[in-house]
């Protein structure tokens, strides 16, 4: 019996159309526009001016606080403008537009393909390097990595849990990375273990990625303390709390962080970026993105520069299909439908999914038939059918008692509901209001 998390979970169709497509390096586009807020936390502060010449890997915006991250240029060229443009959030955000000239990398970056296994740096030095490189959680949450590595006083980390589940349907970026860059990932994991001072790491991989599991298991033999844990397929196994439950059978309490049960979770993509930053001095300016969809001509996995317009990625995958209904940044479950495809890809863009019109439309909403399917689907043990009307009627005290703040916005409830009720839409609104009430109470 394979392990998985205990509460709820759903099984949407896999649709991993691009699983067999090797990672393709996408050449830099003619122009990139790099937003200075690509992470959770304070936006970075721009340190370049208009008409400045920049090289690949050069810092263009400095971290703007404790929870923030450096931003680097992903291309070489001239800064054209620094102004607000639309990003994937559908709002205008400050971003640095650079006209690409050649492809000149900073000399400090080691571009040789050899894998460097040995890392003699201390934990502090590792964390400093990760901070400089502007690494954030690449699973989609984009939480600055260095903050997660600084264990709060009074708590100790025991296990590092590595997220290789990629439970979102369609996406295959992590899968391909584990197949092609397995060894680098594992070096990254051992560096992270050193930074956290733990001697045990578990890489959780869902067993719909048999090749990746086999490859990682073979490679992991050479690394001390790292084990591979195949997991039963279930969405949302990539959620931190779900993954911890599945891999080490511990339950993170309501409102608590993974560290409260002695664990830290990092994504395989993040581990790879850590490897590149620490061993190769390469800041985070490119990542693997899956471009996919049933009507897309050539679903693919691209290694693309941050700031590349999504239109370029879609072009490279065979162009925008005629029946496009929605363009989603991320996967179908937690991704965000975009206003247009001109927005740039960022550190958090794990995929671009193109949904045909008939799949993209919401279905007719009907009354709740009290089937409790949403209750059994919810991985956090909540009662979505009850939270929706509470949020609609603004009964926030009851909503708080229903633990609305525990909702991880995985969308399992809305997905299973046979009446197509917009459960998560309302829960999200309620969560925002309850969050604001709780914050004002603390003051």
């Amino acid at each position, binding site marked *: 019996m394979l392990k998985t998390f205990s509460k709820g979970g759903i099984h949407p169709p896999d649709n991993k159309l691009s699983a067999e497509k090797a990672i393709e390096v996408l050449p830099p586009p003619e122009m990139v526009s790099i937003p200075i807020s690509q992470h959770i936390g304070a936006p970075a502060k721009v340190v370049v001016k208009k008409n400045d010449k920049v090289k690949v890997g050069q810092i263009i915006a400095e971290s703007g606080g404790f929870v923030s991250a450096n931003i680097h240029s992903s291309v070489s060229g001239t800064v054209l403008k620094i102004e607000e443009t639309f990003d994937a959030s559908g*709002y205008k955000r400050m971003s640095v537009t650079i006209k690409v000239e050649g492809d000149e990398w900073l000399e400090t970056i080691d571009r040789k393909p050899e894998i460097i296994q040995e890392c003699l740096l201390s934990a502090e030095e590792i964390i400093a390097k990760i901070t400089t490189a502007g690494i954030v959680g690449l699973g989609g949450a984009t939480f600055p990595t260095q903050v997660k590595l600084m264990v709060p006083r009074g708590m100790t980390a025991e296990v590092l849990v590595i997220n290789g589940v990629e439970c979102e349907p369609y996406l295959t970026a992590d899968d391909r990375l584990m197949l092609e860059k397995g060894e680098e990932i594992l070096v990254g994991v051992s560096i992270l273990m050193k930074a956290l001072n733990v001697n045990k790491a578990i890489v959780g991989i869902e067993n719909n990625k048999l090749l990746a599991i086999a490859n990682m298991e073979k490679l992991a033999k050479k690394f001390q303390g790292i084990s591979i844990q195949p997991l039963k397929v279930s969405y949302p196994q990539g959620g931190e709390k779900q993954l911890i439950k599945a891999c080490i059978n511990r339950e993170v309490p309501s409102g608590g962080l993974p560290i409260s049960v002695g664990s830290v979770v990092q994504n395989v993509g993040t581990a790879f970026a850590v490897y590149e930053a620490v061993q190769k001095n390469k800041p985070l300016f490119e990542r693997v993105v899956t471009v996919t969809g049933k009507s897309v001509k050539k679903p693919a996995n691209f290694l693309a520069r941050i700031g590349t317009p999504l239109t370029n990625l879609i072009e490279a995958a065979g162009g925008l299909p005629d029946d496009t209904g929605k363009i989603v940044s991320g996967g179908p479950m937690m991704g965000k439908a975009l206003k247009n495809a001109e927005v740039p890809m960022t550190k958090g863009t794990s995929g671009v999914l193109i949904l045909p019109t008939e799949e993209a439309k919401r279905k007719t909403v009907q009354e709740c038939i009290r089937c409790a399917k949403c209750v059994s689907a919810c991985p956090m043990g909540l009662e979505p059918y009850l939270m929706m009307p509470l949020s609609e009627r603004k009964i926030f005290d009851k909503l708080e008692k229903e633990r609305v703040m525990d909702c991880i916005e995985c969308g399992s409830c809305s997905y299973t509901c046979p009446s197509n009720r917009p459960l998560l839409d309302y829960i999200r*609104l309620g969560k925002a209001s309850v969050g604001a009430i709780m914050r004002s109470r603390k003051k």
Partner: protein
Amino acid sequence: MTDIVIYTIITISTIGVIAAVILYFVAQKFQVIEDPRIDLVEEALPSANCGGCGFPGCRPFAEACVKAENLDNLFCPVGGNDVMASVGKILGKEVLAVDSKVAVVRCSGAPQFRKNTSIFDSPQGATLSCAMEHALYGGHTDCTYGCLGGGDCVAVCNFDAIHINPITQLPEVIDEKCTACNACVVACPKDIIELRTRNKKDRKIFVSCVNMDKGVSAKKACDVACIACNKCFKVCPYNAITISNNLAFIDADACKLCRKCVSECPTNAILEIGFPERKIKVETEKKETEINLVEMSKKNKENE
């Protein structure tokens, strides 16, 4: 047989009497003496239970009035000054007259001025359409500040005072019905609706725009956006206009309704409502001034 009936009647009556006695003493012991003035005040209030006063309903507001030392921070917008005066009389407390207000929708971005650049797939039958759209992205036009047209404000109005105009797809307030209860102001996720001081003839002059982007970007998203060109600010003889965050704002208390700014605005962002028709000359002139930004900045330079 009759015995059973009689015994039953006797037992039940005895239990009844005993319960009544107990209840009498309990009631004596736990009697809550309520200030009779609360009832009086409640009667004086409009019983709209709309929450515009900031309390859950009319009775809690009445309780607060009775308890409070003075009535300075308590106001029933629905009843207005008259009702507050009678509440003051009942309680023997002084009441300061408050200017009566009315809701004003500060967005003129009808579809012909502001193109839809995406479609929001609103769940059918949702009561909180604007809030939902706002939670997901900036909105279905390129103006991330403007009205979403979903009618959350309409849904909360207890007085049938605000409706979406099907042509402009924007909400419109019926001044006579609006009680300035603030419900729509709170409901609007974009903070578009403002309560402005009323005047005798319900005349209003206001900047009908909340876009805080730079002029070029605002104008690109919407033809009737305020571009913060400063023209209205310069022309206003009463210093009623301030410009901050790339947006002009007219202070209703300082504005003397001279309408000078209205004809000055190159994008028609300033609205005048409730005035008699202007002389035709000005009207046509205004409609024909399709000034684009390039021309405008050129003219500005020439002037300097």
